[in-house]
């Protein structure tokens, strides 16, 4: 366990270093935009990993959560001139309230209720965002959402902003590592493994699940806020159920429950549309079939391939055994 974790840290570090180096070689603004989106996706999926990856409760409301974060930060900073630093904090607080408010009714019972309520929640957010035109701009959206400065450096280019969110991602990743590889992560995994046994050990399973969901919501709203200030423009058209599903795909393709898997998933799934672009009209259907195959035949994601290969290479080594 320890050794696997250590090797995983190395890979996590390596991915961050490579990401940090990429803008030195690429100055195409389009690719920098994709990089930004990739790291934002990473942050959101680090959060989703708590509830869907570790505790195994399906959350299909990431788009709604993300939208709440984006609108909170965008509206407060644009309409009231509050510093984006503070509005991003406000977005995280909104995530906390959301996690508690939505988590309580849907997680107090066993079963599929969370997936249904979160799915419905995303629809509610989308309907309000589309129709409260005076506030959200509807499908026209909000533009000119301000960028901000870190000390003396104004984050006016996408490259500068990229380095800012990369730092945020590293911090968020460290926080995730600290939670996942501690007693909290153990509790989360215990819920997935055998929910019936937990209460008999003096632990309140509702609390554990709500805690995991609240963390997911806070990461999600942070990601949404970062996205709003990065893109400077948000519209209700982006926050669809498909976006929620896309985050679960990232989680699943990378490897459920593993932080390294989240990162690999974010990289691969964000780049995949670019790689499959040559397929034209058939891109979407190919993409979906690939994901379906991975759900059926590679349930532990891409990181498990690495585990299998190293397992074959040094057979007999006792470090084998997944996450």
């Amino acid at each position, binding site marked *: *366990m320890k050794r696997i974790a250590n090797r995983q840290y190395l890979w996590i570090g390596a991915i961050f270093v490579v990401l940090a180096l990429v803008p030195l070689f690429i100055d195409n603004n389009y690719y920098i935009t994709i990089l930004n989106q990739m790291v934002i996706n990473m942050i959101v999926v680090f959060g989703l990993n708590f509830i869907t990856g570790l505790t195994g409760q399906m959350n299909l409301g990431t788009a709604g959560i993300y939208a709440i974060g984006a609108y909170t930060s965008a509206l407060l900073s644009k309409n009231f001139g509050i510093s984006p630093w503070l509005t991003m904090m406000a977005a995280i607080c909104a995530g906390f309230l959301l996690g508690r408010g939505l988590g309580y009714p849907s997680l107090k019972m066993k079963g599929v209720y969370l997936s249904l309520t979160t799915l419905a929640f995303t629809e509610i957010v989308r309907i309000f965002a589309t129709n409260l035109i005076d506030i959200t701009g509807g499908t026209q959206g909000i533009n000119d959402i301000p960028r901000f400065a870190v000390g003396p450096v104004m984050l006016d280019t996408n490259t500068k902003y990229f380095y800012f969110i990369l730092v945020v991602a590293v911090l968020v990743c460290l*926080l995730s590592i*600290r*939670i996942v590889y*501690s*007693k*909290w992560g*153990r*509790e989360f*995994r*215990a819920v997935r*493994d*055998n929910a*019936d*046994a*937990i*209460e*008999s*050990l*003096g*632990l*309140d*399973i509702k*609390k554990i699940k709500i*805690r995991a969901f609240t963390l997911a919501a806070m990461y999600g709203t942070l990601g949404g806020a970062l996205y709003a200030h990065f893109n400077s423009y948000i519209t209700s058209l982006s926050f669809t159920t498909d976006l929620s599903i896309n985050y679960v795909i990232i989680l699943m393709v990378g490897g459920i429950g593993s932080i390294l898997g989240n990162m690999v998933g974010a990289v691969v799934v964000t780049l995949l549309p670019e790689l499959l672009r040559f397929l034209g009209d058939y891109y979407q259907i190919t993409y979906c079939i690939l994901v379906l195959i991975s759900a059926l035949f590679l349930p532990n994601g891409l990181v498990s391939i690495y585990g299998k290969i190293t397992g074959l290479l040094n057979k007999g080594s006792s470090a084998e*055994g*997944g996450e």
Partner: protein
Amino acid sequence: MEQTQVVLEVQNLVKRFDGLVAVDNLNFKVKKGRIHALIGPNGAGKTTTVNMITGDNPQTEGEVLFYGKSISKMPIYERASLGIGRTFQNIKLFSTMTVMENLLIGGQGKTTQNLLKYLANFKLAQREERQLREKAEEILNFIGMYKYKDEQVSNLAYGRQKMTELGRTLMGDPKLILLDEPAAGLNPSERKEFIDIIQKVFENNVDMFLIEHNMDVVMNLSHDITVLNFGCKIAEGDPKSILENEEVISAYLGEGYRKQMKKEAGQDA
């Protein structure tokens, strides 16, 4: 000598499932320093009774008292944190985790439940984790499982898994352990080992309440026995008096068993 203290008491306990009465007006007391067994034929309501005591499936009527205090309306985890530990008839472990991790989870109900405080205070986090690990290692030694501590539990033999479950329960410092069929599925040597450990735990001042089908285990371990049949108590007393009880013999043990027991007793003497 003063009156022995009552650890657990059930009063007029009733459980109905859609009109079917599974347990009817059950009363008994588990006394301090005694191993108490609940026996009876299949479908007599034994597991139902345990589930009422733990809160997994609360009673329709009646009261459950733990050290004189009513716990009948408490959720499962609160009863557990008061000191009621349990094992399950079909082992319920966290199967993708190691033996060590299973034990650690068993103990962490008593650690800080405030995530923010934990994250802010590195020292506290480290100290908690170290104390948990030390305690887990001590228990692993006690149950003879230390060398398996980094094995994933799903790779262990059934007997080892059962032992892991007991270890996990011990991590919560229980005052009373409810054992649901501890000997089921074990081979004779595993069974003997398990009984020895239960004895040792009991000697460390933990009271036991068990459901068991294997009469050897029951007669060897328990001081008091309650016999259930069709949800009703038909007898109560020490092992010897239970063996002599005509109603118990006809409902559960059967004539053959008494003869066999007498024969064995004769051989031992």
